[in-house]
């Protein structure tokens, strides 16, 4: 162990911070309930019943989670749970705000027998998944007992996972493959990342992400010495032996291949960052990070040449210059973009022929690649509308953005909470990442260090990829916004992630077991 960790551990308070956790949690609850109240007053003119059902439900669940944490993981980091509750609560309030079934006007109109357009925002479903997610948090904290009690029956600690490294790697692959299996796999919004389980749609990739972190951590802990010490030198770069790097590369390439097949570029990017960062943490080799970046560049280049890749070059073009693609644009081989939006003659010509998607047909006729930047642009318009202070919850028009409750929920937040609100959200994410990383440094076991470092970084990277996408910092690829987006799989996986960090921070921060000194004073027998 290096000295930094020793220093941090030496200064750890070794005290329970339950009061701080409770105070912060109450603040998070007040935040959530105020958000619901504001939505109701602004939208319907009175405190919404949803405030008591949805906000109240979340408050009860969060308080239960706190009690479990205080009892069974009392040395845990006091920030993780309140921060997660605040994010989950704000996300739930936004989805409630977007779910028109809960609005007063909508109910009146429905009672009058008017035909209403269905909207895809589902506050009830999200509340249910929040319950399940927090339930999983509680269960995970309860099941994963203290690391030193591994002999206890039914005990499973983060450390136990190390024993099943390859099994876990295999499960990650199986989970990733499930959506491709005919019958249970389903394609939603262009990406084939879903499976149907009875009435539910699940994204197994969210869980595969966690398993993959476990696998990388377990594998790298065993091989890191061999990898960094034994190998061939190529100038300044030394490469590990094939037998050391091989297995992990195989699994990694396999995952990326599967994701490319599913056109899930966001997750592929996430796994890539995960692999490179964990390799770096394990071996400290900067040169390998460079090689990783080189591989990424090659990967992107190859992807631009493959037609089934969802046209990566076009995504990059849209990112740089979205305007001509608004409501439909056509990228010709010459690199020129021809708009085929509904106002153009090209579109109307195809429309007259009763084509199902006239813009697409018009583009096919020109021999170009069709794409549409309306989603991205409308998301940016929402941010522009919000400005510095936002329109206020319930007072904007976030429904104008497509997928305003899932991929683009960050833009919806930006519209109603403004720059101010977004900075708060980003600070919350930054704090979660920072607390997770601190847990990694404070952990005693190398496997746990890698594990905690990996999950924390992957959370930060996920936020970067999706938020960067919807704010046009990087090309847009679909991913869930942790804790905010509507969707059960993401919520469950993230709550489990927080549970693991809570458990590990408890283990790291609790006082080290003291050697038993209770042997009494040595008897001194008088010789006299």
């Amino acid at each position, binding site marked *: 162990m290096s000295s930094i960790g020793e220093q941090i551990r030496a200064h750890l308070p070794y005290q329970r911070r339950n009061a701080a956790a409770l105070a912060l949690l109450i603040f998070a609850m007040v935040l959530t309930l105020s958000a619901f109240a504001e939505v109701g007053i602004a939208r319907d003119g009175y405190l919404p019943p949803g405030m008591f059902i949805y906000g109240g439900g979340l408050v009860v669940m969060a308080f239960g989670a706190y009690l479990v944490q205080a009892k069974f993981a009392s040395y845990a980091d006091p920030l993780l749970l309140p921060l997660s509750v605040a994010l989950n609560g704000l996300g739930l309030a936004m989805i409630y705000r977007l779910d028109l079934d809960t609005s007063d006007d909508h109910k009146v109109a429905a009672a009058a027998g008017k035909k209403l357009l269905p909207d895809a925002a589902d506050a009830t479903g999200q509340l249910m998944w929040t319950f399940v997610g927090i339930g999983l948090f509680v269960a995970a904290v309860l099941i994963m007992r203290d690391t030193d009690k591994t002999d206890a029956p039914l005990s499973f600690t983060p450390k136990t996972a190390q024993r099943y490294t390859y099994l876990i790697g295999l499960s990650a692959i199986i989970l990733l493959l499930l959506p491709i299996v005919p019958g249970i796999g389903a394609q939603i919004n262009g990406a084939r990342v879903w499976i149907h389980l009875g009435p539910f749609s699940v994204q197994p990739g969210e869980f595969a992400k966690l398993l993959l972190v476990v696998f990388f951590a377990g594998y790298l802990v065993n091989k890191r010495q061999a990898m960094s010490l034994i190998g061939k030198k190529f100038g300044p770069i030394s490469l590990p032996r094939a037998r050391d790097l091989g297995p992990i590369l195989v699994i990694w390439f396999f995952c990326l291949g599967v994701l490319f097949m599913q056109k899930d570029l966001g997750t592929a990017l996430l796994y890539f960052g995960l692999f490179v960062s964990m390799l770096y943490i394990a071996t*400290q080799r900067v040169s390998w990070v460079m090689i990783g970046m080189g591989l990424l560049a090659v990967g992107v280049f190859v992807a631009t040449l493959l037609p089934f890749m969802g046209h990566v070059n076009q995504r990059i073009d849209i990112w740089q210059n979205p305007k001509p693609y608004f409501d439909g644009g056509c990228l010709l081989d010459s690199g020129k973009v021809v708009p085929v939006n509904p106002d153009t003659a090209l579109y109307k010509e195809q429309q007259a022929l009763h084509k199902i998607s006239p813009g697409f047909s018009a583009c096919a006729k020109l021999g170009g690649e069709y794409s549409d930047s309306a989603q991205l642009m409308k998301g940016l318009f929402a941010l522009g509308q919000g400005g510095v202070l936002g329109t206020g919850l319930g007072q904007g028009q976030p429904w104008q953005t497509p997928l305003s409750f899932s991929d683009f929920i960050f833009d919806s937040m930006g519209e109603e909470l*403004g720059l101010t609100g977004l900075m708060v959200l980003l600070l919350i994410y*930054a704090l979660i990442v920072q607390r997770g990383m601190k847990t*990694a440094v404070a952990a005693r076991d190398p496997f746990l260090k890698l594990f905690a470092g990996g999950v924390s*970084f992957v959370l930060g990277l996920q936020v970067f990829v999706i*938020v960067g996408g919807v704010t046009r910092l990087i090309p847009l690829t679909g991913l869930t916004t942790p804790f905010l987006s509507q969707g059960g799989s993401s919520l469950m996986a993230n709550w489990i992630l927080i549970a693991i960090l809570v458990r590990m921070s408890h283990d790291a921060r609790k006082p080290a077991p003291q050697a038993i000194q209770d042997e009494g004073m040595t008897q001194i027998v008088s010789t006299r």
Partner: protein
Amino acid sequence: MDKPIRRVAIFGLLLIFGLMAQVNYVQGSQAESLRKDPNNRRKYQDVFNSPRGQISAGGVVLVTSQPTGKDNPKYGRTYKDGPIFAPVTGFFNGYATKVEASYNSLLGGSDKRITQQRWFDTFIGKKAEGADLEMTIDPEAQRTAYRALQEKTQEGRRGGAVVLDIKTGALKVAASWPSFDPNEVAPQTGQKGTKRLNELNGRTGVIQPLVDNALSQTFPPGSSFKAVTSAVGMEQLNLTSSSTVNTGPLTLPESNKLLPNSHDHGNCGGQAPLKGAFAESCNTSFGRMALELGIQRLSDGAQPFGFGKNIKIEPDFRSAVSDVPVSIKDAQGKTIETGKDGTARSGIGQENVRATPLQMAMVAAAIANNGKIMNPYVVQKVRAKDQSELYSASPKEFGQAIKADTAEQLRDMMRAVVSEGTAKNLQGRNIAGKTGTAEQGGSIPNSRWFVGFGPIENPRYAFAVITEGPGDGATNAGPVAAAIMAQVLKK
């Protein structure tokens, strides 16, 4: 392992820091331009929630916002004498046109000039109120114009009238018949209004009420275009109003057909001074003049008047393009040059020459104002709710179209049209001008013009009137112009 973890942690936090920087950039410095993006439909919808500013003209409030008592839209829009003022006010129903569109951000209260002044309101979440706008239009003259156009235009055809203040370019009248009622598509009409708008928008054929006939529609100017031909001819061929011109029969060089005159006696009987040929509107002299100039010089000479450009009246509010084309493209995209016969006919405002009433009023303005044209505009002042002035029009020069000397001679020629020429019926009405009667081919009725200025001495206003129907410009457009000018000159 702690050192790399720390580095990865710093990297992870840098990523989030990058996001913060980007969000600041987008919501801080980009917000304004995102809100104004032409693809952004929010800029119209948001204003349903707050009262929009009034539009008034000559002290009369014409357009107001009133609460509807409903949630969506919270405020409706009421247009007093909607059809009469629609060519300038435009309509507002989420989408907007004309002045409603040009000054949308000021009327709606989202403009920086308002929000920065009322920053405290913004801070406490109070919506900034829309500003009130005052137009240059003379409401009484506009009403007169609308009724006179309605009376003189043939059933099922179009008419338009424009009056400009020659010293400033302020639009005093911009009337169109037939028109539409913006009240029918205002926000409070909901689905019905949308349907009505779609119906108006989808109209094909002659009558398209959403395209006004004063600023946005072009017509063949006929003999009124002789004012332009004369101006170019006098400057390029060194003619004066007293130069003798051949008014005898003209055989067109390509088809060997005769270019007809309306009459072959008096000044049109063989030879006359230019002034006489102008007053009696002898086609052959101006056909010859055009042939001598050639189509290129005629077309270039018309540019300084505004031909070939869509003239900017207000931001995002432009007129249709008037044109003296050297060549046109047919339906197959093939270029057809304007030949010799076409050039002769262009000289008398036929063939493919087209002009908006606004354009012809600008021609008259150049003549009345010693060759100088002021840029037309329609919004005089914008005031915030606290009466502070946010915008005030500052007249700008459009250009010097012709020499002052040429303009003076043309003024004389236009006076002769009324005193001894084709528009003797307008004597005593204190206006001068040029008549025009353009054939539109086949069974389509004539477009009948009267383009000129008033008062006769020391002119202050320039006008152009067109009505469609049988007969000539002097009797069917002249009296309309006279009635409008009588109203305008009352002040």
